[in-house]
């Protein structure tokens, strides 16, 4: 108990360092003092502007999207007792992406508060369809069936998305930067609009920890312990939709973060979701911000978008999980 809390504090410290790095490292380097001045005593100099209007929104996007995706992945793994669950693999991000592209390209919606609802709607539809298809037949929603259903739905949604983008050059031009998964697209005001959505999702997710522990014992046992299994499933599903939908709306479809981070947390703190959830919530944005910093450094003077870094780091985790002899249910 005590060491887990201390570890969580350590994670918070790591997160603080990654925030500082994200504010100071890039094509221009800033010392801690520059960053402090830009935040505390904004003078309008070039340095202050870069920090205030470029680095801060970028860091904010990383914090929100990272926390959201880490929690969403942990929730999905807990509810489906599925080690391969991730909003990217199970098609949730693809559903949100299609809805956002449709809203921007076809309906002309332009503000985040406008299209975040579309993103959540798309995430909801994709989640429900993937779960229903994966749950048909013997054994219910096994990891393999869910992953395959997610791949099929993602392929379908992806081709509709590309059909929309191919019809209009300017939509394609925006979309090709967004689809990679990037923290540079959201402005400060967009990020401000996303905060309440993420906050609701975080509260809902953290409340569910105890219930997820009981679900891990199996539906029967959970029921006999007084858990309302269906209510927990629906609440967790809603939290996933809000979190993954909003994260996709601000940063594009970022894959594998929600897969890998909860596994790391589980390895460190054990199978207790009351700890896995907050650890994932703090570790995931740290990983995302560090990945973003790496992306700024490896291809200078250009940048690698953060979604590419997370895929290159996270997909091997997925493959390693698949290679385990038994895809043991969680």
């Amino acid at each position: 108990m005590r060491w887990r809390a201390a570890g969580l504090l350590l994670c918070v410290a790591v997160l603080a360092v990654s925030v500082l790095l994200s504010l100071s490292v890039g094509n221009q380097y800033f010392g801690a003092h520059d960053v402090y001045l830009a935040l505390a005593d904004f003078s309008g100099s070039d340095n202050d502007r870069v920090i205030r209007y470029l680095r801060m929104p970028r860091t904010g996007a990383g914090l929100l999207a990272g926390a959201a995706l880490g929690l969403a992945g942990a929730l999905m793994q807990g509810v489906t007792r599925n080690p391969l669950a991730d909003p990217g693999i199970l098609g949730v991000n693809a559903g949100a992406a299609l809805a956002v592209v449709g809203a921007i390209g076809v309906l002309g919606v332009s503000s985040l508060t406008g299209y975040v609802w579309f993103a959540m709607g798309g995430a909801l539809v994709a989640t429900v369809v993937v779960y229903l298809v994966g749950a048909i037949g013997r054994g219910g929603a096994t990891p393999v069936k869910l992953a395959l259903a997610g791949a099929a739905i993602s392929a379908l949604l992806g081709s509709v998305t590309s059909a929309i983008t191919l019809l209009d050059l300017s939509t394609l031009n925006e979309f090709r930067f967004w689809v990679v998964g990037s923290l540079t697209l959201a402005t400060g005001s967009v990020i401000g609009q996303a905060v309440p959505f993420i906050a609701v999702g975080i509260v809902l997710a953290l409340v569910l920890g105890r219930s997820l522990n009981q679900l891990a014992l199996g539906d029967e046992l959970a029921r006999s312990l007084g858990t309302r299994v269906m209510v927990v499933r629906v609440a967790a599903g809603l939290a996933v939709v809000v979190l993954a939908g909003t994260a996709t709306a601000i940063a594009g479809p970022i894959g594998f973060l929600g897969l890998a981070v909860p596994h790391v947390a589980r390895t460190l703190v054990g199978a207790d979701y009351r700890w896995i959830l907050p650890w994932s919530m703090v570790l995931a944005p740290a990983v995302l911000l560090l990945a973003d910093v790496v992306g700024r450094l490896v291809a200078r003077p250009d940048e690698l978008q953060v979604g590419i870094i997370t895929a290159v780091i996270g997909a091997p985790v997925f493959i390693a999980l698949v290679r385990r002899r038994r895809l043991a249910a969680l």
Partner: protein
Amino acid sequence: MDVSSLVWSTVAVALTLAVGALSLTLGDYRIPLPLVLDTLSGQGTLILNDIVLNGRLPRVLVGIGVGTAFGVSGAIFQRLARNPLVSPDLIGVNAGAALAAVLMITVLGSGWIPGGALLGSLLAATAVYLLAYRDGVSGYRLVLVGIGVTAIIGSVTAYLLTLADIYTAKSASQWLAGSLAGRSWSHAVLIGVALVILLPAAVAGARQLRLLELGDDLARTLAGRVELSRGLLILVGVALAALATAAAGPIAFVALVAPQLARRLVAERVAGLLMAGALGALLVVASDLVARQILAPTQLPVGIVTAFLGAPYLLILMARANRIGSGG
């Protein structure tokens, strides 16, 4: 080949030709069928020659060629893995070819795309196979590892698109969706030559494998030859998918759907291979007709139509496999 196989394959080929002929008549200018036939026999006007012989005919021929190649390639993989989901779509072969081609379109700005596509798909297929290998290769592990590798390849491909100027990015994305727009005779010749070489090899390989697998005792003494003909068949399957991707982009789900339909119509395996090719051709040519007409004058890439048809079919296939308990 028994009677019903013969009937079904005749029907498939006839339908393909009929849809192909219809495609030659439709477009920005409608050309009545008799005029099309005149033009094909060399009696057309200059304009008709240009529209039919240089515009629509190569497009239809490329459609038939890549459809056949994807269908046969899918049939080979499904037969070897005994798993309907092991198709070049899902195990990274098409993604590897696509990455190599996009690399050549956007960054290198040149290069021989078929060669690059072949190399890319071979590398991707080898990576997936090695990563999935663990005391042998199970079909589901192959598919899941393929999903992971495809994700990495896909994100690199998407990154390349952000580097290019918007017009190059547009043509690369159109190509990535799987498109027959603007296909010329050089594409038709490419896929035609590929089929002339690889189809007989596929049939010969499948026939030999069937003979080798017939007798257990014989097979045990010939185990090395079984592995060899399996390996050659895999190579042929990868090459077919790669060259089809080089000619028309990774047209989604054709390699997955065509062999499944073929299996339901034709039981015998070597004939089933050819039937999968015929149905693949029909699927691509018909889908391309829909893609050209449905939002005319705007043309959709053919791969979007095949994805619309194929993804629900894949879900039904999975649901059925799950219900009878053979799913993962």
